[in-house]
């Protein structure tokens, strides 16, 4: 048997850059906690993007300088942030009116699993005894117009995160529009998962061999 060499594909920063490139000028965007937060660092020159954080700030800016952190100015990940000139604060019911009322254009989230029909699982592995915690993930996928997922293509043990059907508890049904992995950018369409772009050194056949769900060119 020929031993398969694992191709790394894009680095996380390159994935974040790909996402940032697909966010149009003037968009209102919510970035999930963790890797999605990196997208804000790669907005192309000349575009203005307004960031929403569901704990109650529209117009979130960069991290503050060391020593300038304000415990009452944080993001959804409970990290210190800043507010841009023109930012606004609001309470939670207003914040989720922006989300559920389809006022936010794009949300970028991480994933445990994405299914070929766009189902997303990203809040729980359903392990018995685990403390369930959901936060705003279910509201975001139910309400935001476009959901992008940014994730490594496979788990640390090599399992495909892009699956025929999610085995983990769902966050939402049929909600994902596009997947940015380290190996490819994949659109979720009515006709299945269509590969838009392959990372350097990745062939379609290699990508399919690393993916449980059926892919289309």
């Amino acid at each position, binding site marked *: 048997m020929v031993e398969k060499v694992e191709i790394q594909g894009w680095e996380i920063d390159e994935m974040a850059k790909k996402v940032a490139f697909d966010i149009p000028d003037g968009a209102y965007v919510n970035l999930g906690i963790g890797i999605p937060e990196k997208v804000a660092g790669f907005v192309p020159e000349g575009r203005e993007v307004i960031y929403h*954080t*569901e*704990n*109650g*700030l529209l117009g979130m800016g960069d991290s503050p300088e060391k020593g300038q952190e*304000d*415990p*009452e*100015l*944080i*993001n959804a990940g*409970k990290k210190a942030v800043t*507010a841009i000139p023109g930012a606004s*604060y*609001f*309470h*939670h*019911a207003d*914040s*989720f009116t922006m*989300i*559920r009322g389809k006022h936010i254009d794009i949300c970028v989230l991480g994933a445990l699993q994405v299914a070929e029909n766009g*189902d997303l699982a990203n809040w729980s592995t*359903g392990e018995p*005894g685990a*403390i*369930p*915690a*959901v*936060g*705003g*993930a*279910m*509201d975001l996928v*139910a*309400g935001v117009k476009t959901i992008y997922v940014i994730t490594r293509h496979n788990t640390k043990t090599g399992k495909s995160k892009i699956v025929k059907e999610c085995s983990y*508890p*769902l*966050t*939402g*049904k049929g909600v994902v529009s596009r997947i940015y992995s380290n190996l490819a950018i994949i659109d979720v369409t009515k006709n299945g998962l269509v590969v838009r772009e392959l990372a350097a050194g990745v062939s379609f056949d290699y990508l399919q061999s690393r993916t449980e769900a059926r892919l289309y060119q």
Partner: protein
Amino acid sequence: MINKLVNTTKEAVSGIFDGATIMIGGFGEAGSPIELIHALIDQGAKNLTIVSNNTGSGEVGLAALIAHKRVKKMICSFPRTANSTVFPDLYKKSEIALELVPQGTLAERIRAGGAGIPAFFTPTSVGTPLEEGKEKRIFDRVTYVMEKAIKADFAFVKAKAADRYGNLIYNKTARNFGPVMCTAAKTTIVQVQQFVEPGELDPECIVTPGIFVERVLIVKNPVDESKLVAENRRYPW
């Protein structure tokens, strides 16, 4: 004359009874009314149902209230955070109940409670394990679940400034659940850093009109929860 100012922390939490439902504002430490929670620990009410987004950090504030076994049930969206061990430990031992509610649904259930709306339909949680047991309806070909309003006997809220009418303004993202919780409790108790004369708060900028507030306590220099947690402090001191 209307004057909602109370003079002591003891007075602020007087009348809170065993079995009460209490909404506690805050998203993590931002907006958490720690001094009021500590006053409640001293006051002694137990078998409480607490509505709050998280379950507190370390062994101060909400986490301390839970550690003292005063809480029988938490209604929240995210019961674990980096420094949260008290709730997870009790939950694993089945010594505390949890109603897990998506964050936006939690906010809207509280808003509805304050607005006299008994229930509403939302797309959030449809097709997920959290839809279980909820009535479903289809509107314009989209499926929604019915969510019921939450009301409380008391609300604890932290704001920046108040006047004697109970008009409030908040500080940055510490606002979070405060304004909706103020509307949904029979007795809303607010701790503020500044107490000002009527008229000093611009009527155009008041976030919570005083009608939603019953008691105001001045806490000029509230403690910083993350510092206390970093120092491994525990309440009572």
